[in-house]
């Protein structure tokens, strides 16, 4: 039925006198709620954090230095092996080059034998030092 029939009070004159129906706190009120900040102030200090960072960084750089020393030793080993071998390789290449150069000079003499005033052999630069041949004729397999 209507609300007045349910909630009526004895001797009520109008609907405006109905007792209120509210949702309210329990008797005695609610428990108190904490809303204040409580950020704890413990833990490492600034100096402690800085020293830990500096310590970790320096230990890392020490490891980097150790690794660099090992790598440099490996590279030095490879370079020493190359230094030991290179005279042999250069000597073999010199033999091959001298033979090729002789054949080249003979070919040049054959081609230019009718040209007057042509000094066969070497007409390279005037500085007096020996320069390797600049053309690609001697090693056509490479060029």
């Amino acid at each position, binding site marked *: 039925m209507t609300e007045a029939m349910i909630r009526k009070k004895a001797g009520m004159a109008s609907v405006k006198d109905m007792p209120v129906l509210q949702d309210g706190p329990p008797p005695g009120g609610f428990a108190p709620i904490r809303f204040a900040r409580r950020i704890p102030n413990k833990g490492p200090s600034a100096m402690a954090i800085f020293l830990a960072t500096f310590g970790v960084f320096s230990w890392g750089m020490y490891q980097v230095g150790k690794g660099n020393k090992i790598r440099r030793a*490996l590279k030095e*080993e*490879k370079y*020493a*092996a*190359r*230094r*030991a*071998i290179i*005279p*042999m*390789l*250069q*000597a*073999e*290449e*010199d*033999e091959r*080059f*001298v033979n090729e*150069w002789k054949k080249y000079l003979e070919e040049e003499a054959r081609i230019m034998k009718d040209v007057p005033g042509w000094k066969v052999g070497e007409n390279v630069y005037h500085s007096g*030092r*020996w320069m390797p041949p600049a053309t690609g004729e001697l090693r056509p397999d490479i060029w």
Partner: protein
Amino acid sequence: MTSTVDTAGEPVPTSSLLMAAAKHIGTKCRGENLAFLKCKKDDPNPEKCLDKGRQVTQCVLHLLRDLHQNCSKELDAYAGCMYYHTNEFELCRKEQKEFEKACTL
């Protein structure tokens, strides 16, 4: 390539064999190497340093032949490992240690 010699039994101076024997070459043929390099520094003309170059080649080939006679198995293993790993010393430490134990420097 499992063998370092050609058909006549002579060691072929390939890059892996030379790098494997580099420490021996560096100590035993040091005089010839230095003489050849000094000759080259004075005059880079290859015809002028042919005799010293021949000495270098003979020294190295004799050394390779001696190494092949004394410790051929370890030398073959080491040179084969060098060939497989393209002359990386760090990847052939085991064979290098056995080779240097067999044919000491």
